[in-house]
């Protein structure tokens, strides 16, 4: 273990994510030239991960002849690899890089206490400097990876991901808990900007899947157990057909999660839902117009006036769903335009909270305006009321577009524009320990930089299980997740950190305790010519460290977590 002499430290603003709460200049001053003057350079940077800063780091490492680098920024889950690669580009061994997390574990965790957050950040960076002094140059280990991906969920995202992987010569186990494929898209009739119906798209994908030799499709099937880690994940699945249960085991290298979403179900009485059959949800309305012809009928009466109330179950400042469901504005206008084209005498009244027909979807909004649809707007503190007077159903609102004028519409049908909510059944997420965001959808590592990866190595996410998406966006994320899962396994082997256990032969007296503690049979009993001692089989050791605490003479240390490193970090943190 060669202690470092010349360390460079970068402290990131992360825009304002860190510097809004942590005084980054104070952190820089606290560590610059410190720790027996081994910190020869300390800088703050607006975005440490930016290309410009990465280039500057390479120049700094070479110009200052650094033998260790620390970046104090976000979680290492996000950018550890980024900065390891930077050090490699500057001809430094990547394992000499040490990361300090001052965002998730300082600025954000203590955004209520800026002084405390800054003090903590200083301690965390000092602990990283202490650790950095011991960070040796190492070579990576390699393990075999199974070139098979389990795709969970056979909706449009899962189906496209499966096909994409199969085309890359990767085996796919496509697992669907229902007895049919297609998920929500299979429910849809006509679609915006497509001549195919949802069902036709799914039929086409299904035909490709059943023909493909690399895809094993399993319907009526759920995963109930998983073990192992990226490269070799053992899953057990349960298939139930006609009351018969069949259990199967697979080993896969990666899992691609595409489990979709649930429709929001309005609460009893929400905008009159449940009080009259005239109030229905958007999915029910879409189904009506897809399956009827001639006159549009509902509950025995012809429909002429339709009131659409937007953002039901979405954008709730005080409710569970604070997010925008993204696709509902477009979906509603598409349904309204379709209804007007297909059935005579339809008048559409849209009660909106501001429309979000982004991108090309604006064309549809323009079509709707040209067709004479009427748009009214409200804020959350003045939502429309739905009342039943005799056989009449009245929708009333103070329209903000006409200076809060009270406008009342007698509606033959009230369509509640319901959004997407996370799956009520969260069993699969719990099984794989997938983190969820504040919206309760599965969470990616980084919205922009690692948008389909999760903190669970080897598990990617696609489609609306990650948050509201339309079909195009779901397919985009599915292809991205498929490529990411493929890239993990494509070489047939994975590089793993060489952070294995080491034995001090002077201290070791061979008692066998380490051999008993090791779950991987990585401890060998050898005669080194002087005495019988333990030796680590580096190709089998996984670096868990279970052998270290049971060693009475304290002869075992884990690389990167040795006693001198941990104790020097404790010195810096206290």
């Amino acid at each position, binding site marked *: 273990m060669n202690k470092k002499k010349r360390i460079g430290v970068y402290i990131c603003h992360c825009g304002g994510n860190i510097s809004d709460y942590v005084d980054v200049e104070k952190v820089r001053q606290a560590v610059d030239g410190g720790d027996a003057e081994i910190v020869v350079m300390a800088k703050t940077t607006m975005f440490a991960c930016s290309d410009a800063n990465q280039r500057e780091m390479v120049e700094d490492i070479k110009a200052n002849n650094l033998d260790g680098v620390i970046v104090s920024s976000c979680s290492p889950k996000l950018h550890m690899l980024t900065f390891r690669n930077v050090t490699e580009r500057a001809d430094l061994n990547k394992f000499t890089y040490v990361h300090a997390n001052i965002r998730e574990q300082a600025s954000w965790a203590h955004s209520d*206490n800026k*002084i405390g957050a800054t003090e903590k950040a200083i301690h965390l960076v000092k602990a990283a400097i202490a650790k950095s002094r011991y960070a040796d140059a190492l070579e990576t280990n390699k393990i075999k990876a199974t070139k098979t991906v389990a795709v969970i969920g056979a909706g449009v995202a899962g189906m496209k991901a499966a096909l994409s992987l199969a085309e890359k010569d990767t085996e796919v186990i496509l697992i669907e808990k229902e007895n049919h494929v297609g998920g929500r898209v299979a429910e849809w009739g006509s679609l915006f900007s497509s001549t195919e119906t949802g069902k036709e798209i799914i039929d086409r994908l299904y035909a490709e899947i059943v023909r493909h030799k690399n895809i094993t499709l399993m319907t009526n099937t759920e995963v109930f157990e998983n073990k192992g880690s990226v490269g070799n994940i053992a899953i057990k699945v349960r298939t139930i057909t006609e009351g018969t249960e069949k259990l199967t085991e697979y080993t896969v290298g990666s899992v691609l999660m595409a489990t979709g979403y649930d429709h929001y179900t309005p609460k009893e009485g929400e905008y009159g839902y449940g009080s009259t059959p005239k109030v229905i949800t958007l999915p029910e309305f879409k189904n009506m117009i897809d399956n009827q012809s001639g006159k549009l009928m509902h509950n025995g009466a012809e429909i002429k006036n339709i009131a659409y109330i937007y953002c039901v179950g979405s954008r709730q400042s005080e409710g569970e769903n604070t997010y925008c469901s993204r696709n509902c504005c477009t979906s509603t206008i598409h349904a309204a335009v379709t209804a007007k084209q297909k059935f005579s005498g339809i008048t559409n009244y849209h009660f909106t909270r501001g429309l979000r027909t982004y991108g090309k979807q604006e064309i549809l909004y323009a079509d709707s305006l040209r067709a004479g649809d009427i748009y009214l707007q409200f804020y959350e503190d003045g939502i429309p009321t739905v009342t039943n007077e005799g056989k009449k159903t009245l929708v009333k609102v103070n329209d903000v577009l006409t200076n809060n004028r009270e406008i009342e519409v007698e509606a033959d049908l009230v369509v509640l524009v319901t959004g997407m909510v996370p799956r009520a059944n969260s069993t699969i997420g719990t099984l794989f320990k997938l983190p969820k965001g504040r919206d309760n959808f599965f969470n990616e590592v980084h919205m922009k930089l690692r948008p389909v990866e999760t903190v669970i190595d080897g598990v990617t996410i696609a489609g609306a299980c990650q948050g509201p998406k339309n079909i195009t966006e779901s397919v985009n994320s599915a292809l991205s997740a498929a490529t990411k899962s493929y890239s993990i396994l494509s070489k047939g082997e994975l590089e793993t950190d060489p952070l294995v256990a080491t034995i001090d032969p002077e201290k070791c007296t061979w008692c066998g305790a380490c051999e008993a503690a090791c779950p991987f049979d990585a401890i060998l009993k050898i005669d080194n010519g002087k005495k019988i001692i333990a030796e680590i089989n580096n190709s089998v050791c996984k670096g868990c460290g279970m052998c270290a605490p049971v060693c009475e003479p304290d002869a075992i240390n884990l690389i990167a977590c040795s*006693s001198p490193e941990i104790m020097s970090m404790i010195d810096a943190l206290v």
Partner: protein
Amino acid sequence: MGELNKKSAKILVFSTEKISDPAIDMAGLLKLHYPPTVYTISIPCSSGIKPSWILYAYEKGFDGVFIAADGSDCIYGETCTEKTGNIVGKTHNLMKEKNIDPSRLRMAAICSVCSESFVKQVRGFNEYLLKTLHA
């Protein structure tokens, strides 16, 4: 140390890279606040913690040590829970020998999504330590 931090005990957390680290990171993401004198050292597995590290932390001035254990989610195997428990038991005995209150060492299984549980644990531990050591 800032004025606000005088109300906080110094707690060293041993967390694990794959299991409890994500939960602690997510606690930050969700702005679930806890005392800023709670510091984390990340290791691969909670059953690799040496009792000597824990004793060293007390010796240097930490009020408490919290092991955010892998529990049954450990990627290295099912024996982790038992082995981490043994480490805690052994350390408790060593603490008694040195007249250190064993309740200054706590352990709880913190899974990768257990952010709220982590925050609840360290807040409660902080209150206990303030009451017993800094009253």
